[in-house]
């Protein structure tokens, strides 16, 4: 134990004969497994194995919120072939070395323990976690198009049984301490101050006797479990994402094979997956998302910015209420204002319903949900608006918005950021109608706000750097992914999405089978068919944006007059109970026979893949134009925004990849 290590510290408690292995990556808030850390860990294990007097090992982290955040993805994503095989073997060897130490091992987890971190913990006899909200356990590899390849796919099913392990491996879901305890992923949850002492108690338990699951881990049962899981996977992924399917095979065959066979299987399949473009795209997307969450305005130190501490939302419609809900869930006192008491009442009701369903899904405890609800206040009166941020989400009418901004400018503080959630109106024009246009900006959320991760931050020619930087920081703090775009009709996402939706409707009017159109895009990898999405958005709303765009780009966009018939007769979509499909209690039932009446022709352009290619080309070309016009800063930004804002097939890497 003479050598010193870069990424970890080892010391022996001589009185109790317990070894402590503490991960502490230098100059970083996180511990990750890079090659050097793996080698150091392996070296430590070899040294400890020789110390006969030792009674146990406790593995912990010196970082306050992270145990080990997983493998070093940056390096991993560059590796290929033999290099990749080497790192896989090294990781597996490290985990095996821990597992084979001749005394009991406890992982004392106080923070994120994911991917390779959990694979290390799984090699220990016992896992105990603190009750901190930072504790997250899971194997998110399949989300990145790969699989747990350092023994995780092998060890987890053997520890908690195949039926419990599969959901974790296949969805990549992360569990908090309480859920992890329920799933047997951890053995105990204690306050963080007692974590290390309690770890010592666990050493007294000796080695763990592994459960055997004879009724589950036999060929017959495994086959059945696999079949069921495969069915549900295929219906969710439409076969477009190979990683979960491969991970399923590896995990299932793993419980029936020897440890070594299963590890070899992990390596082989990992290698195949990692060279697939899907994995490369998903990993790249992950990095882009992480970068967007940390992006800052050049030359401005985020710490020097005046933080936003409270907000008002003007307009209690679906968007306004959705935004108000989201802000309160993130701890911001939020005032919801609407002139109409009935609209305000239904907005408040919408917020409370969102809390109710989140509480049902155990996103919040009863106390947290009440706290969130209590952060919302509501008024119809002209009250003082001395807030840090005001987000206007009123009706999409330029004159009305200008009037609202005039009064906001009067009632707010001089340093209040005045934002609009408009999806297509010219923000520069709104800004110039106020006395301080430099503090006006667009914060464009997507519907439904709680589920859509993207926020377009729209800067105008006159938006100040300070306003932009504070807004960017705010959007990051509320857990959304910001993309900065220029003020231009439709910004990025709607400018690309709406013409695609309208074209799908036009194909329908010309005679295409609506289910054929929707299925074509589902097969392509969109989360929802365009006609169904248009039903969700509302045909009138789509038309409104289309008109704005047609005025702005008359040379290539036209108002699709053939859709006017459907609008006039009220076939507007889900909100009307009928659009391209019929809806009952919010659920779609069948194609709306009335809509078929509007078909003017019977032109069918071909197979599903022809339809998909036609519609996708529209999106591709328009995204390209947006990049060329400088609406977004880069191709990467455009790809990320399209994927997060429209659900554009993530495995493809985005329209420009």
């Amino acid at each position, binding site marked *: 134990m003479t050598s010193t290590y870069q990424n970890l510290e080892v010391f022996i408690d001589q009185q109790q004969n317990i070894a402590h292995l503490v991960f502490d990556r230098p100059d970083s808030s996180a511990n990750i497994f890079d090659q050097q850390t793996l080698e150091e860990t392996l070296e430590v294990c070899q040294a400890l194995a020789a110390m006969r007097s030792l009674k146990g090992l406790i593995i912990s982290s010196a970082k306050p919120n992270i145990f080990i955040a997983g493998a070093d993805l940056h390096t991993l994503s560059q590796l290929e072939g033999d290099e990749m095989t080497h790192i896989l073997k090294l990781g597996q060897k490290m985990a095996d070395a821990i597992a084979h130490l001749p005394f009991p091992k406890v992982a004392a987890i106080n923070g994120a323990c994911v991917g390779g971190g959990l694979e290390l913990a799984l090699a220990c006899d016992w896992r105990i976690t603190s009750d901190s909200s930072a504790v997250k356990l899971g194997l998110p590899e399949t989300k990145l198009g790969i699989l747990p390849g350092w023994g995780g796919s092998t060890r987890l099913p053997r520890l908690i049984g195949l039926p419990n392990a599969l959901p974790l491996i296949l969805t990549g879901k992360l569990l908090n301490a309480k859920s992890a305890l329920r799933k047997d992923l951890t053995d105990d949850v204690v306050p963080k101050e007692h974590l290390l002492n309690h770890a010592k108690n666990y050493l007294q338990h000796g080695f763990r006797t592994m459960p055997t699951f004879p009724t589950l881990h036999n060929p017959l049962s495994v086959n059945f479990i696999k079949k069921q899981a495969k069915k549900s996977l295929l219906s969710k992924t439409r076969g477009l994402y190979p990683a979960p399917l491969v991970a399923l095979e590896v995990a299932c065959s793993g419980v029936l094979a020897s440890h070594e066979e299963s590890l070899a299987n992990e390596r082989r399949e990992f290698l195949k997956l990692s060279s697939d473009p899907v994995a490369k795209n998903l990993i790249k997307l992950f990095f882009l998302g992480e970068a967007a969450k940390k992006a800052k305005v050049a030359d401005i130190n985020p710490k020097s910015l005046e933080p936003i501490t409270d907000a008002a939302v003007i307009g209690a419609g679906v968007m306004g209420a959705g935004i108000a809900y989201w802000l309160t869930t993130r701890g911001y*006192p939020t*005032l919801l204002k609407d002139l109409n*008491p*009935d609209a*305000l*009442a*239904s907005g*408040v*009701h919408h917020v409370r319903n969102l809390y109710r369903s989140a509480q049902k899904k155990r996103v919040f405890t009863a106390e947290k949900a*009440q*706290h969130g609800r*209590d*952060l919302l*206040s*509501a*008024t*119809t*009166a002209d*009250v*003082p*608006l*001395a807030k840090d941020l005001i987000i206007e989400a009123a009706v999409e009418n330029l004159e009305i918005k200008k009037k609202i901004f005039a009064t906001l400018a009067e009632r707010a503080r001089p340093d209040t950021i005045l934002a609009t959630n408009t999806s297509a109106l010219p923000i520069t024009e709104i800004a110039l109608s106020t006395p301080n246009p430099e503090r006006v900006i667009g914060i464009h959320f997507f519907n439904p706000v709680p589920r859509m991760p993207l926020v377009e931050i729209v800067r105008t020619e006159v938006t100040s750097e300070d306003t932009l930087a504070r807004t960017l920081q705010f959007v990051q703090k509320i857990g959304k992914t910001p993309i900065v775009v220029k003020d231009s009709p439709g910004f990025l996402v709607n400018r690309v999405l709406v013409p695609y939706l309208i074209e799908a409707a036009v194909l329908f009017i010309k005679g295409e089978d609506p289910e054929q159109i929707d299925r074509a895009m589902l097969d392509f990898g969109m989360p929802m068919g365009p006609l169904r999405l248009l039903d969700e958005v509302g045909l009138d709303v789509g038309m409104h944006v289309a008109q704005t765009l047609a005025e702005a780009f008359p040379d290539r966009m036209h108002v699709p007059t053939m859709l006017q018939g459907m609008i006039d007769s009220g076939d507007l979509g889900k909100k009307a109970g009928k659009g391209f499909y019929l809806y009952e209690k919010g659920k779609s039932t069948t194609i709306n026979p009335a809509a078929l009446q509007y078909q003017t022709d019977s032109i069918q352009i071909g197979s599903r893949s022809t339809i998909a290619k036609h519609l996708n080309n529209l999106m591709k070309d328009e995204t390209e134009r947006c990049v060329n016009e400088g609406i977004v800063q880069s191709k990467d930004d455009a790809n990320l925004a399209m994927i997060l804002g429209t659900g554009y097939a993530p495995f493809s890497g985005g329209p420009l990849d």
Partner: protein
Amino acid sequence: MKDVYILAGTRTPFSRMGSDLAHLSASDLGREATSSLLTQTGLDPAAIDEVIMGCVCQPADTANIARVIALRSGIPQHVPAVTVHRNCASGFEAITTAYERIQANRGNLYLVGGAESMSNAPLLYNKSATRKYAKLGRARTLTQRLQALTSFRPKDFSPIIGLKVGLTDPVSGLNMGETAEVLAREFDLTREDLDAFAAESQRKALASQEERAQEISAVYTKSKSIATDNGVRADSTIEKLATLKPVFDRNTGVVTAGNSSQITDGAVTLLVGTLEAAEQHGLKPLGRLIDYAHTGCDPKRMGLGPVKAIAAANHRAQLSLADADLVEINEAFAAQVLACTRALSTEGYAQQAGLDSPIGQIDQTTLNQLGGSIALGHPVGATGARLTLSALYQLQTRQQKRALVSACVGGGQGTALWLESTL
């Protein structure tokens, strides 16, 4: 002495028990009123020195409800909070406590008021059942458990109605309605007198919906905007009231549900502070609390509480009934308000109420001009604050100077406040 002002105020609508606001707890209601007041004034809640709230049926799950309301309304942790209880005058008590704190140099800005959800008054187990449940809780073996279980009798499961015992004075053994019957008998009040008073209260309340709207902040709940007091009846007449059966003395009684205050949910909040505090936070005072008195009386005749309280407040403020441009006496019962006006003005009745001699006549046209608790309801912990808020708005609307507000208090007390408009 410092001058103490009411700087702002608002309230929830008052809703009959079991109606629009019944699903909200007392702390929900208190939070609604507090949050509305903070929103309307734009006050930085960190500037508040203390939160003082009245609440009579203090719910078991929110001990010191003032603290719960304060924290839930976004008032920062460092601001302390206390719940006060002077029964039906708890809302007044919150105001006078703030006054005393200010006089004692403890602070200069207080958020006060009252919150009551009478819909949520609990049902209680009786003593025998409580004992048996305790025994069951301690039982360890199966035999012990069976023994404990079999000791229950049907009567153990008939609950005590929290509201009923709460409205009964444990010293005299009379419930509030019965004390009103005592006053009706001793002050020669007929059923017609009481019903006429009640009908008038309803009429005035109905006519003043719009004026009262300025006191009220809407509560948004269950997809509806609740903005009006729903106890007010459009169809109340003396004839209709005459058809109601007496509640507390079935045979010869005169007190009915129609000529008593309603059981109601609601909350009121006010900001009480000095002129410096008003200036510092950009608040325009509604009025000044000139002086006040809390006094005691016979619990059996608790309805007479205002008589001695008004006499004492007059003495302290050096004012007489003639100085009041308007008077608010809480309408716990028509019998009790009428007994008070007789006692204040009439030889003989005055002595019966413990005065040496009558102290003056209340001009009936200035009494409870927007109706009273018979029409609006009486959420016990909040009423005192409502009377104060309403009187100050009335003075402002009518461009008048002074108001006298008072209430009787279960258990035999009275409170009276002299207020002055700051026009």
